[in-house]
């Protein structure tokens, strides 16, 4: 593989968990809920995926990851939707809770030497024909099968959001819950379901880290991806296709380090690690005025 192909492959690999998490968060935010607890869903997904994949089956592993993510989302939903507690504070606490809980459980169950435990990992599956497209083929179509699931979910979410009554109801809820309710939309139900969907996607993102990439669990291995995913949602302007593109761009920024390492440039690696975050900040400033968040994002009116 050429250095450029390595770079592209790395971009897609980094983008895959971010894409799952950001897509789920997009749906949640379009319903008016910002879930900073996404980080917690990802780490729980990673842990749940790790435990479930211990059964020997990759797909049971992903099911476990998804279930763990949904469980985290349920806790978030109980406080943020049922009790209408502040979403940001709830989300912060949820992230803290599950980062701590997974680390504690991991040490208790697997001990300090748990890193030696291995689980079955998902190898890459070459899609016939597509993977032989020059330059882009291998990067996009010689990936783990879970990546293809993401490719499929992106257009489905987009179609659902813009071409069904339910998608319209979701967007209306995020813009103006009172109006949505008055028009006969079950605003709370939409918010709950979209937060659970976001949790499931966050869980799968964690599963990807463990099952398709690292092959083992490590404390705090989500490494801020939940927060990055939330930034990606803004960069993608709350549109599923835009969010997918933003995830890929972020992945590319992260993968630059492989590219430059391959070229043998003597630049400190920390600068490359920091680069995606710097670019995200610049991107957020750059789309100022063009990005319009759902009008009721983060708050619920006093009277509905």
């Amino acid at each position, binding site marked *: 593989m050429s250095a450029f192909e390595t770079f592209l492959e790395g971009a897609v690999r980094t983008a895959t968990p971010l894409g799952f998490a950001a897509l789920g968060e997009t749906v949640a935010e379009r319903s008016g809920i910002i879930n900073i607890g996404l980080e917690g869903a990802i780490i729980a997904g990673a842990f749940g995926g790790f435990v479930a994949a211990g059964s020997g089956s990759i797909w049971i592993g992903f099911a476990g990851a998804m279930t763990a993510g949904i469980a985290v989302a349920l806790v978030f939903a109980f406080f943020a939707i049922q*009790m*209408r*507690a502040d979403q940001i504070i709830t989300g912060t606490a949820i992230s803290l*809770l599950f980062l*701590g809980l997974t680390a504690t459980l991991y040490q*208790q169950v697997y001990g300090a030497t748990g890193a030696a435990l291995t689980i079955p990992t998902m190898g890459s599956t070459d899609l016939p024909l597509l993977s032989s497209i020059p330059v882009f083929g291998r990067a996009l179509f010689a990936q783990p099968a879970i990546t293809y699931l993401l490719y499929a979910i992106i257009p489905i979410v987009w179609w659902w959001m813009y071409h069904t009554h339910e998608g319209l109801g979701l967007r209306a809820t995020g813009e103006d819950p009172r109006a949505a309710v008055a028009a006969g939309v079950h605003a709370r139900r939409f918010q709950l379901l979209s937060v659970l969907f976001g949790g499931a996607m966050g869980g799968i993102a964690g599963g990807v880290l463990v099952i398709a990439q690292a092959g083992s669990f490590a404390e705090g291995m989500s490494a801020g991806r939940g927060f990055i995913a939330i930034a990606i949602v803004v960069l993608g302007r709350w549109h599923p296709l835009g969010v997918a593109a933003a995830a890929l761009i972020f992945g590319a920024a992260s993968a630059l380090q492989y590219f430059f390492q391959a070229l043998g440039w003597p630049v400190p690696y920390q*600068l490359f690690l920091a680069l995606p975050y710097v670019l995200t*900040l610049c991107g957020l400033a750059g789309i100022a005025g063009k990005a319009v968040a759902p009008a009721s994002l*983060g708050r619920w009116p006093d009277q509905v």
Partner: protein
Amino acid sequence: MGAELALFADSLVRSTPLIIAGLAVALAFRGGVFNIGAEGQLLVGAIAATTVSLAGSDALGRFIVVVSLISAALAGAVWAGIAAELRRRFHVLEIISTIMLNFIAIYLVSFLVRGPLQESTHIYPQTESLAASARLPLLIPDTRLHMGFAVAVAIAALLSWVFRKTAAGFRIRATGASPRAALTAGRIDISKTSFLVFLFSGALAGIAGGIEVTGVTFALYENLSPGYGYTAIAVALIAGLSPLGIIGSGIFFGVLETGAIALQREFGVPSSLASVVEAAFILGALALAAMKGRRISGFTAAR
């Protein structure tokens, strides 16, 4: 000089950055600024304090500590200022920008201690140790408890006074509680108020980092902060954003974390359990507030 005293002193040492960063968070939240970047601001404060201490300890003598803490405050303010300017000019949500800046600060520390600021043997990823004159004096001799704790208590008292008694503190509270009413009924320049609140919040977090370096670690290294800036959010929230309450919640969390470390050492209980307890406290506080019909809110002035 018993083990209890040492453990107690250690707890207060641990609580010092939590109190100061907690005050930074409370100042921001009370002013309607959702600064969750205390961690990053604390780290750049630590960088600034280390750099100034190492460079100027010969020239400045005893004043070096004061100078290095002031530079820590300035560095924290500048770091927060990036997010403040992004918010003011481009309406970038500070929730997102401060988290990004936290990551950048972590990599910045990593770069510095493995690059330009690395100690002279180039073996360990850390800076040289601070000269004795550049270190904070001790509060209780023969313990690790340093003057920083007294500074933390003093800042809490000052902030409490500012909120209750001064026109500026009232403007901050009004802006945070209801930006629209502050603007319309109070004719307060809310954009300027929240910008300044952001800077001062960053400055406080920066001081927390400076005190950690000059009082505890005496050098800069990776993982200097075990997430003080994030725990500070819990510290501030559980105290209901009250500055004097933060002294209590900061000490409580200091005891909790010191105890957790001791438990891990003695009995092998994972110290990460401390963050589970902290999170449970935040959620408990939220549930209590929700049941009383009051709302703890951090999103009021975000846009």
